[in-house]
């Protein structure tokens, strides 16, 4: 430690001097806390910096620790923006008073109402569809209909699922609760559990591979995992099925962002947020991770368009947050591990 002190003192003095000297010419900077992976977010930031000259400093971590960090730092936080995956997490951040409302006609025009917070504290930036996948050698698309149908005893021993600990399944369950109420949803989840072919999986990709290998015939996953897997192994016999098209539509979730309550560079953060909703950034979102653009004016990547059009469930994704705790408890009661 002794050794560190002079070095740090020197650095500190140097950086203090640099700041005071450069404060006039200093480039603008936006600081971001991101729960979205570095490799999926950095290219966007780089593009923004290239276009505007605004520097973006960011750290990545899981949502939980990032939110605790924001809470502990309170008014002194360096962060201007919080980016997370899953609406449930965004709702929590807003609910814990970590974000502030943003009034922006651009954002309101670019992001549909069901993909943003009713109080405008956060905005969905990319859409993640969670739908049904099946082994195309064993099943036909006509065998399938809805998430609810997978609880039917006819699927006994044929269903694969990812763990209930993943927020994607918690959000899906939250949506089911909103639509059907707790009692019926619990019946559905119990039905799923009874139909499982094998223990639940830790990730979507392994689950999709199990469908392909014939360990089970059908399962629920996010489309971009399917996209990534098929890119590597195009011959796997797995097909996509758009669930609940005769009902409310496919369950979608978002990754999104909000401006932190104590942002130092509020205006800069808002500009970045607006840019992220623009067509240039939206195209990058879909190219990088095969997610769907949140901005309906932007066309998805051709690979995604090949999977066909589908009807989204237009219920506000905010519900995923409100009902997440209820969903987690319900899945525990139903024995969904």
């Amino acid at each position, binding site marked *: 430690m002794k050794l560190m002190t002079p070095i740090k003192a020197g650095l500190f003095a140097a950086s203090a001097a640099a700041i005071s000297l450069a404060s006039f010419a200093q480039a603008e900077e936006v600081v971001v806390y991101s729960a979205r992976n570095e*490799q999926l977010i950095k290219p966007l930031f780089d593009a923004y910096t290239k276009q505007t000259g605004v520097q973006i400093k960011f750290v990545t971590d*899981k949502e939980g620790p990032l939110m605790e*960090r924001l809470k502990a730092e309170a008014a*002194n936080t360096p962060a201007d923006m919080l980016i997370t995956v899953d609406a449930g997490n965004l709702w929590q951040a807003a609910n814990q008073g970590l974000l502030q409302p943003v009034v922006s006609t651009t954002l309101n025009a670019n992001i549909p109402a069901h993909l943003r917070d009713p109080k405008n504290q956060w905005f969905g930036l990319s859409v993640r569809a969670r739908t049904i996948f099946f082994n195309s050698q064993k099943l036909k698309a006509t065998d399938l209909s809805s998430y609810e149908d997978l609880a039917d005893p006819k699927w006994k021993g044929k269903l694969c699922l990812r763990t209930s600990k993943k*927020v994607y399944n918690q959000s899906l369950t939250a949506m089911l609760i909103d639509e059907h109420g707790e009692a019926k949803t619990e019946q559905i989840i119990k039905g799923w559990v009874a139909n499982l072919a094998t223990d639940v999986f830790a990730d979507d990709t*392994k689950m999709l591979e199990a469908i392909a*290998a014939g*360990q089970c015939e059908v399962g629920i996953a996010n489309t971009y995992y399917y996209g990534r897997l098929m890119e590597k192994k195009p011959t796997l016999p797995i097909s996509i099925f758009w669930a609940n098209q005769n009902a409310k539509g496919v369950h979608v979730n978002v990754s999104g962002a909000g401006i932190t309550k104590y942002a130092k560079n509020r205006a800069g953060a808002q500009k970045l947020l607006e840019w992220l909703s623009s067509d240039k950034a939206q195209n990058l979102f879909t190219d990088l991770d095969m997610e769907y653009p949140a901005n309906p004016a932007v066309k998805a990547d051709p690979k995604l368009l090949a999977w066909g059009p589908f009807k989204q469930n237009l219920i506000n994704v905010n519900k995923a947050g409100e009902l997440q705790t209820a969903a987690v408890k319900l899945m525990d009661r139903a024995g969904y591990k």
Partner: protein
Amino acid sequence: MNTVLANRHALTTYCLSLARFLTGWRLAAFLVSLITLVPLLVVLFSLFSPEPEIWDHLRQYVLPDLLINTFWLALGVALGTGFLGVSLAWLTAVCEFPGRRIFAWALMLPLAIPAYVAAFVNIGLFDFTGPLQTALRLWFGSSAWFPPIRSRGGVILVMTLSLYPYVYLLARNAFMTQGKRSLEVAQSLGLSRLAGFFKVALPMARPWIFSGIMLALMESLADFGTVAVFNYDTFTTAIYKAWFGLFSLSSASQLASILVMLVLLLALGEQSWRGAKRYHATGKSNQSRYTLQPFLGWISCLYAGLILALAFALPVGQLLVWCVEVFAEDFDSRYPMFVLHSVLLSSMAALLVVVAALLLAYALRLYNDWPTRFFGRLSTLGYAIPGSVLAVGVFIPVAWLDNQLIAILKPWLGGGAILRGTLTVMLLAYVARFLAPGFNAIDSAMQRITRSQEEAARGMGLSGWRLFIRVHLPLLRGGIFSAAMLVFVDVMKEMPITLMTRPFGWDTLSVRVFEMTSEGQWERAALPAVALVIAGLIPVILLTRQAEH
């Protein structure tokens, strides 16, 4: 009036005795233990804000299964690492067999592989969709008889294979320093070689073996990554469920507190069991070994080779294959920086932990009273707390202090963060988390120093610092090396604290691994994982060779 005076007098006496109690080494040790105690207290503080509704739910639907799972995991890992660690340590320290010289250091290599990486590799290879079962189905039409890897046995196996080096390293140190003479004494008293092992060598190495098993246990109790890959729900799962699923950090901390107390009880239990026994060496340690008969020798070679293959060669082999697949796409000019950051942080943390552990162990040697012992034990408990929870425990007080400082210094410094975002916070957090491996290795070595060695030195006029530097330090070399190595490798692999406290731009190899694995892109995590293994291996090899001489 009188009572006031009497009270004041009592207070003064109390303060004086406290001041007298807290002098020198003891004060230093107390300050060291504060680094862990503060975050620990932040976590324990949660016990005052119960959330009955969440607790009811956890108690009813979540905890029963988890406790059973955790119990089996702890038991399995304790027995497994104990057996592998002790048997391999005995073979390489005391016996001579083909390949011994290589195995002596190679058996430590699995330390460099993060357990959750080994977990994923094993699932990738042995699950239904893996190449092995796929091939079996191709040949026999079914692989139904193949034991499922995603099972209790699978988790225990993978965790044992990646944690046994803790026991191996410490037990080997014990067998090496024990001196062959104690065994010869046993034999001269008519004990067979096997009986000598069980009746003399093993009991004499107990503090080391226990320390090793304790480390493996704490690590498996605090583990989240590995059990998550297996979807095997343990106590940690409940902690994360309370935090990330039910959004109650206080319930999560309460669960963590229970875990900590459990480990504390276990540690104190062992201490009272150990009681006043001493574990000094008999005679000088000796490099001559028992040469095993050819048959036994080759069996030993096979056994050590099998463990090494399963625990190291197999996962690294798979990682290398993936690495080749993604290298062109993922390797970029930032990698040297990631390696540099990892190595720099790990070395600094190792150095700090060794100093802190030395202070603590030395204070414990000088003052063997219960408060010192109790605080000594308390300050190693950071290892039993899941990393993310401990990271919060570190971050909250630091941020609080920072906010106070900023408020005071604002007129001069303009209101930027002072402590946060510096390496100091990270390093403090590493000390809080990794004091246990450092302390256990050094404290066990301290047990080997006899009182007579000390008295002889005192007789020659050495005392205080000079006694410590001239006599204790050289005798503690083996323990210090083990401590530094364990901490170095542990910090290389560490994720939650690094993620939460790193300054902007201080990404490390384990941060890269996190970025890739958090979305299930395991193949792409292979590159940083391999780099991590290689960078972690160099000290392993260097230090083992050092320890051999």
